């Protein structure tokens, strides 16, 4: 039986990469680097055997020729991002093994719960995975199971479906035969606009929709699933920005942690930092 010992929810904004890489080369104070470092230490303290990471693909790989709402990556190893993202965002390469046994189990156990997860034995990870992992686990040594959520190409999976899949994910992990310590990571964001008419139209804190962001963080802190589901409604997300749908990864995460109140839920430089301390310490 595997155990979820902790969970993290974190930004994957590629626009933060150059700042973070530069901050790591100096001792100068940087609140964003420090926030990532705290999460990195927290993750290390959980001594994870595997990271189940919930993210997306930004139409780099999965496309409308064959779009799965939820897909488990299970090649022997995964790497990324693409040359385009490396050049544009200054993202370094990240490569890690995949826990294929757990990946297979998640798909099989999903069926038992009426959840159909697609899978791929040949896939890459884009900045949604590599950006947070670069700063959370720079050693690139812990096996991953990537779960891709279609947050890009409508029709998108609705909020409630994301939570349901998250709950199924938790049950599947807990029924996995190997006695492993699992950390679930949700990689997403709050209000955001890219390629729409409000791009860069942000408030004094750099937020597209401060109310959305604040309500989301409060709801995570309180374990208020009703509010999270309301925020994850298609209309509410569009009001907050045209690609706020990246928030759906956090709803899968909310399901995976049974909507428990987060041990930490706040924003640093408008970026969400969430964690749940869930299991027995080693």
């Amino acid at each position, binding site marked *: 039986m595997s155990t979820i010992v902790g969970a993290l929810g974190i930004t994957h904004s590629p626009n933060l990469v150059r700042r973070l890489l530069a901050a790591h080369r100096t001792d100068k104070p940087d609140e964003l680097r420090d926030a990532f470092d705290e999460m990195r230490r927290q993750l290390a303290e959980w001594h994870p055997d595997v990271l189940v990471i919930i993210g997306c693909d930004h139409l780099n790989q999965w496309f409308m020729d064959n779009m799965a709402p939820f897909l488990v990556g299970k090649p022997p190893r995964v790497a990324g991002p693409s040359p385009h993202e490396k050049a544009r965002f200054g993202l370094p390469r990240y490569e890690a093994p995949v826990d294929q046994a757990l990946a297979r189990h998640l798909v099989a156990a999903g069926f038992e719960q009426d959840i159909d997860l697609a899978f791929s034995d040949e896939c890459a990870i884009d900045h949604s995975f590599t950006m947070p992992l670069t700063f959370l686990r720079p050693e690139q040594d812990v096996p991953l199971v990537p779960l891709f959520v279609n947050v890009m190409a409508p029709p998108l999976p609705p909020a409630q479906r994301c939570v349901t899949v998250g709950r199924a994910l938790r049950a599947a992990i807990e029924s996995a035969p190997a006695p492993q310590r699992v950390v679930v990571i949700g990689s997403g964001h709050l209000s955001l606009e890219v*390629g729409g008419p409000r791009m860069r139209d942000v408030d004094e804190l750099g937020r597209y929709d401060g109310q959305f962001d604040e309500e989301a963080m409060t709801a995570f802190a309180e374990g208020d699933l009703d509010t999270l589901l309301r925020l994850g409604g298609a209309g509410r997300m569009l009001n907050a920005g045209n690609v706020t749908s990246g928030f759906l990864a956090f709803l899968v995460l909310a399901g995976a942690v049974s909507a428990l109140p987060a041990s930490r839920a706040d924003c640093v430089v408008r970026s969400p930092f969430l964690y749940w301390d869930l299991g027995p310490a080693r």
Partner: protein
Amino acid sequence: VSRYGVDKALRRLIHDAGARDALQDHPDAALEGCELDEAERRALLAWDVGTLYQLGAHPFLLWNAFSGIAADREAARKDYLAAIRPHGYPDYTT
């Protein structure tokens, strides 16, 4: 209107430098396999982002493709926003 064809072309232009370079001189090769009507094809070749946006091109792809060919990304952002703003939020479901 073939939103899928436009999105497929935009994705190719983001990732494939060869297709980007060939777009003007060899558009048939650059856009091979992308089903486009005449208006979409014209708009793509002219980088008419306002028209592409209005026709329902995926905004994330459109912005990434357009800014990817720009020498000055800030200037590109201003041009892009000026072109798309009149069109609000068109449906881009394929």
